[in-house]
């Protein structure tokens, strides 16, 4: 399945040129750009691993692209996302977040149902083990 988290998952994967422009948009807004990666992209998995600290005080998106290239080199088999963080009062949270790298084989989830009282069901979304593990 195609994991559809983030701002642009319904579009074809962004090219580096497109990513560059989105980063530039973040910087123009004064947002810090953060690179994160994970192999646990469960919908409730909030804390992906940080690739270093969020990049504050950057003027040019090229710096982010260099870090992204490095992150991809090391963790190219995982999900990587970029986010723009707005520290201004009243927001102080993420303003934009989008996936910039997907593993060769995307994650699959399945739904576990625990039948409980009456007709109620307790639902749990769990990761389905990869069907074909490459050697």
């Amino acid at each position: 399945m195609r994991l559809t988290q983030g701002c642009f998952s319904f579009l074809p994967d962004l090219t580096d040129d497109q990513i560059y422009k989105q980063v530039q948009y973040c910087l123009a807004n004064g947002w810090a750009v953060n690179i994160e990666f994970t192999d646990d992209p469960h919908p409730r998995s909030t804390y992906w691993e940080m690739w270093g600290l969020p990049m504050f005080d950057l003027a040019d998106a090229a710096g982010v692209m260099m870090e992204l290239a490095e992150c991809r080199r090391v963790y190219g088999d995982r999900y990587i996302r970029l986010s723009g963080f707005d520290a201004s009062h009243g927001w102080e949270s993420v303003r934009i977040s989008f996936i910039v790298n997907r593993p060769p084989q995307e994650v699959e989830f399945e739904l576990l149902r625990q039948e409980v009282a009456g007709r109620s069901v307790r639902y749990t979304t769990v990761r389905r083990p990869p069907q074909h593990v490459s050697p």
Partner: protein
Amino acid sequence: MNAHTGTVSGKERYRSGVMEYKRMGYWEPDYVPKDTDVIALFRVTPQDGVDPIEASAAVAGESSTATWTVVWTDRLTAAEKYRAKCYRVDEVPGAPGQYFAYIAYDLDLFESGSIANLSASIIGNVFGFKPLKALRLEDMRLPVAYVKTFQGPATGIVVERERLDKFGRPLLGATVKPKLGLSGRNYGRVVYEALKGGLDFTKDDENINSQPFMHWRERFLYCMEAVNRAQAASGEMKGTYLNVTAATMEDMYERAEFAKELGSVVVMIDLVIGYTAIQSMAKWARRNDVILHLHRAGHSTYTRQKSHGVSFRVIAKWMRLAGVDHIHAGTVVGKLEGDPNTTRGYYDICRDDFNPMKLEHGVFFDQSWASLNKLMPVASGGIHAGQMHQLLDLLGEDVVLQFGGGTIGHPMGIQAGAIANRVALEAMILARNEGRDYVHEGPEILAKAAESCTPLKAALETWKDVTFNYQSTDTPDFVPTALAAV
């Protein structure tokens, strides 16, 4: 027009009998409102022959301490403090016979944190007062001291986005259609298709409660199966606004508890349940980590006509205080009433921490929200993917765009409808962030995105000529003055 009429004082003031309101202390043109005063702006239409100042003073009187005759028991109180004071009356531009009356109320007149009390004063008896032909509450300035006594939105825009892990774009929703008649099982099918296709939310309609064709528990159970299936299939948080509106508070709590037990991230109520019930549900929502969606069912009966009633901008302010997380606030381009400037005013009230006075948007006062959570506006009713550039331009990013017909009515099915909307939205956000002139290039951006997305292509084709261009009834009274080019 704003001349003194001579407030009577001392012994004379309390002589038994009838006295003009404007001489009893309800017209004080020299009064400077305190920072802690509640200020209300009314549109007053006096009966023929009634002095507008007297009519406005009467509004101040009847919405605060006055009755039709002088009573000596006023003297047992700090009456001057408790009298609301009309301090300014202006003719309404372009509307002969109508006047804007500014009235200040001391903070002590209101119970902390109670919309019921606030509204019982400000829109209580006075709207039926005989010397007035019509009366409309246009706007209110709520002092910070009063704002701070309210909970405010249970979740707020920022935390809602954090919980759902959705940033940088409007959220997408759809109201399940047909709104009446589906069984629980069929209803859940629509929810599943729409969410799996790519929407973030689906929604019960305002009048879906618990009817012979679908008991509420059936709806909740099937909807949550649908939500969870769609979540597992996309790896993305999903929700459906389960409408818990019911006949009694006890019933609503029962339904809300069941929704929470089933794991729903959001429940929904209708405006018609009343202010007190809304505040109760807002407290429940905060206590239970559930987002609270409000459908403004019924509001047009009193918000739409300009001469009489309550402006929706006041309802929006009350609802932000009351503590709902979502409120339907208009689409501008869709099928329901909504002048662009007036609607912009509502959106600002929902989302900003400070609203500067902006007469061309119908915003009459500076309003500070003192860091009260932000309220997510919802645009719903007659919108479709082909309008994405206009919607983004007019409504911004922090909004739920609800495409009901525009999802479910898609010729290739509900999932295709949802895909079309999501692709259109993401393409437009991408273009906007890249600095493109997306408002003018909108149709081109959509056409380009449709090249690799057949559902979007079909949506654009199906609804290409659908617009709702009718005259708005509720429009601002002030137009911006064009400044000479310098």
